[in-house]
């Protein structure tokens, strides 16, 4: 596609429910990244994929968070048993590879846990 596409753009969920956030990177981009943007913490790295592998998942805040990528393309970020502190904008980004190319961001998925 023309840019990084994320869905849903907005999601309101009840505390304790599971949510899935989807990212469709730019076609041909092998590297994919998830970030979180929240009022208290700013922008934080969550996880990075090269192809379908995740060499660095050091930013995932707890074991309630997981992500997968299939076919070297679409990625899904899953948050289980959501908590109010999970409320944030979840940003996906992609780049051609991980060796210095421009990183392009999607517009994010705004998650509100009530």
């Amino acid at each position: 596609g023309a840019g990084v596409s994320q869905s849903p753009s907005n999601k309101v969920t009840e505390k304790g429910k599971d949510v899935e956030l989807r990212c469709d990177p730019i076609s041909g981009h092998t590297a994919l990244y998830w970030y979180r943007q929240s009022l208290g913490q700013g922008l934080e790295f969550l996880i990075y994929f090269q192809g379908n592998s995740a060499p660095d998942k050091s930013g995932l805040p707890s074991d309630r968070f997981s992500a997968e990528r299939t076919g070297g393309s679409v990625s899904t970020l899953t948050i289980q048993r959501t908590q109010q502190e999970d409320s944030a904008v979840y940003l996906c980004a992609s780049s051609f590879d991980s060796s210095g190319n421009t990183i392009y961001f999607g517009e994010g998925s705004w998650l509100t846990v009530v």
Partner: protein
Amino acid sequence: AQSVTQLDSHVSVSEGTPVLLRCNYSSSYSPSLFWYVQHPNKGLQLLLKYTSAATLVKGINGFEAEFKKSETSFHLTKPSAHMSDAAEYFCVVGAGGTSYGKLTFGQGTILTVHP
């Protein structure tokens, strides 16, 4: 380890006057440095990036930044502000090697442009 500090949380300028957004970084290796801009309810857009080539980096919309290793700074400037420049700006440092995309963001500087 790497970190980045944006020295001003808010900057206010008049249209047509120069813009200076300050950024200091810390990195244990030769860093990749970026400035991103985020307009309200929009995604992050890359303004410019430094990856160890020329120390003066030119970006989009008339912005440029100078990498000063001795001062560990990467300040963003523009000679003449435009109303459309009003947005939040993020200074970003990238990890090296295969973790290139593991970015560390500054806290952001909100730029306000007055007519």
